[in-house]
């Protein structure tokens, strides 16, 4: 059980999807600076990332690889994650009405953004057992969501700062992402 926990922590903190592997950085800037819609987007992306990366792994390990069609994996991954997004989009429509109306594009984007496909590819390349890679995708989804929420709270403060006009908006968010990913790089190497 300890090494499962270890795998989750490595996935969530040490090689975090957004800040260390720099996958899915676009979702950081898509949600508005209201903490509520960021939390809803984070919950939605947690579900999509976790389920689709795990399903992709199963598809790859048990269907594509044995019959030698591993070169089709990219198309398969995109297919499964988009169908999952559409299924959950309807589901999210009545749970997050406000954010859906305002950022429905962001919700669709999650289906096909690099985080989902990146984690699936990392899963396929890794030598972990099924169970460990399930923990790995759970951890990376958790890390993705936590960073999204923490960033929205940071953005609340960025509004009140006397930032020079050149850096306002996405520029300052990119600078902050840079500094935080510098810090997460420091965490590298654990386990």
């Amino acid at each position, binding site marked *: 059980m300890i090494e499962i926990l270890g795998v989750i922590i490595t996935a969530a903190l040490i090689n975090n999807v957004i800040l260390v592997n720099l996958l899915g950085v676009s979702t950081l800037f898509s949600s508005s600076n209201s903490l509520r819609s960021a939390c809803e987007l984070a919950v939605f992306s947690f579900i999509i990332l976790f389920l689709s990366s795990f399903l992709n792994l199963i598809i790859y390990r048990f269907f594509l690889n044995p019959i030698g069609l591993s070169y089709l994996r990219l198309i398969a991954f995109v297919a499964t994650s988009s169908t999952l997004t559409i299924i959950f989009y309807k589901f999210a429509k009545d749970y997050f009405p406000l954010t859906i109306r305002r950022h429905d594009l962001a919700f669709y984007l999650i289906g096909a953004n690099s985080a989902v496909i990146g984690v699936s590819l990392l899963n396929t390349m890794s030598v972990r057992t099924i169970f460990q890679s399930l923990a790995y995708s759970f951890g990376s989804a958790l890390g993705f969501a936590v960073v999204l929420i923490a960033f929205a709270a940071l953005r*609340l*403060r960025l509004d*009140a700062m006397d930032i020079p006009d050149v850096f306002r908006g996405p520029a300052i968010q990119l600078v902050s992402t840079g500094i935080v990913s510098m810090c997460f790089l420091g965490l590298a190497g654990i386990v």
Partner: protein
Amino acid sequence: MRFAEKIIESLCVSTRQPMPGGIKPPDYKQETLRSRLMPTPIPEELILPLAQHGNSRSRPLVKPGDKVLKYQAIACSDVTGIVDLHAPTSGIVLAIENFPIPSPVDKESKCILLKKDGLDAEIDHNTLANYRSLSYLELIKLIEQAGIFGLGGAEYPSRLKLKSGKNKKIKLLIINAVECEPYITADEALLREKAQFVVQGAEILQAACMAEHCVIVIESNKADAIKALEQTQLNSSIELFKIAAKYPTGSEKQLIQAVTSKEVPSGKYPTDIGILMHNAGTAYAVYQAVIEGKPCISRITTLAGGSLKTPKNFEALIGTPIDYLLNLCGLNQQTHTMTLMGGPLMGVKLARTDVPILKTTNCIIAASEDKFPPASIELACIRCGFCADVCPASLLPQQLYLYAKCQNFSELISHGLNDCIECGACAYVCPSNIPLIQYYRASKDELASQLENKISSEQWKQRFQHHQYRVKKDKEARRDSKRRETIKPTELTLKISPPIFSREAAKKEIAAAVVRVRKRKAQFIASSGGENTETDK
């Protein structure tokens, strides 16, 4: 009666301090307490503002040129008709026009100018020996006629407080003699010399609002006031309650928390949890109104500050110009930088000094350079948290400042801006001297004006919808009448049988028409409303 035991048990503990935060500023109270209460000086001219509390107007009962006697009623509130202003001295009414009133900006409002004639002749007023003979309704009526407004600085008229006490069960009446703000010694001077009148006034108030317990609360470092109170307290049922000296325990909510460690729910009044609070000055005024039959024409004001030679306490008449009082205390013009009405932490910086004293003025400070340095430059907030430690309402002033700066109103409300009592403790300890109170007042004003806009725009929306409905109905009515003229009468007879007039047919006709109209209106509202509730794309 768990509540009562709690009070008794809390009374045994001499000093208690459950209020979070709070500051201990140096209180500079010694100079004004050296001398006794000065006799009431009567200035040449008295300016009596009509709008005493809030902006509700009050109607003058006298015309320019009338002669008035002392204690004569000269104005009554046009809303309730109860007299709220009495002539402080006998004299002639010179004029009723706009005069400047105390305010940080040059503000004017309608005042009565009264010139004294030096006789100080009083109108006959009946004293009352035993107030217990009257029922509490008559007591309230007597207090109302005296025009007593909360003399403790808050302008909430005392009679409204008493009346609100009627329908709610009042368990505890607190007489607030805590003066936690520096420089102000009005209540302390009053208690030193007239403690027995204040205690009698408290008993009258307790009878008026039928409270089970009455407590006088005072700060533990006011020794001689406590001594005076203890002597008078031997025979009365009112307990004395000492609390530690800390700013801002004197404010209403914080004092209730200090005495009964209960909290007034946000947005509600103390009477909702069975507590009524009055100032010591109000108790004295109630004593004068009920037993001596004199309405409230004067109040005890402290004249303090660096540039006064002899700071002292006056029982000053309402309407006395402030510069007259300052000159009485020997104002040193060179060092006089600004005049504050009220204490240094919650007071108002007056734009001009020839303004009159109101019923809520408990202190005038003629500030000098050394104690009141000019406001220095506002540095950036380093979120050090000193202000959060001293906030008595345990808010987060640094977060409120952050969201006030970027005008994020939903965050301001969620951080509790409406619970801020503007006591100034946070701005007092801020190392970057940020005028936090100015930010919070600006945001509160902005929120209030937004609410106003919302209400008026809601009203306009309804009127616009009704206007559209009315225009549509008129157009249809006009179109029907036009169609009837184009059809020539002959065709009319051919098509429909001559109308047989019968009561049932007419009734059915009307019912059908009403149903049609109601359907069309519902359908129109639905159609226009329909757009409203259309599901989005």
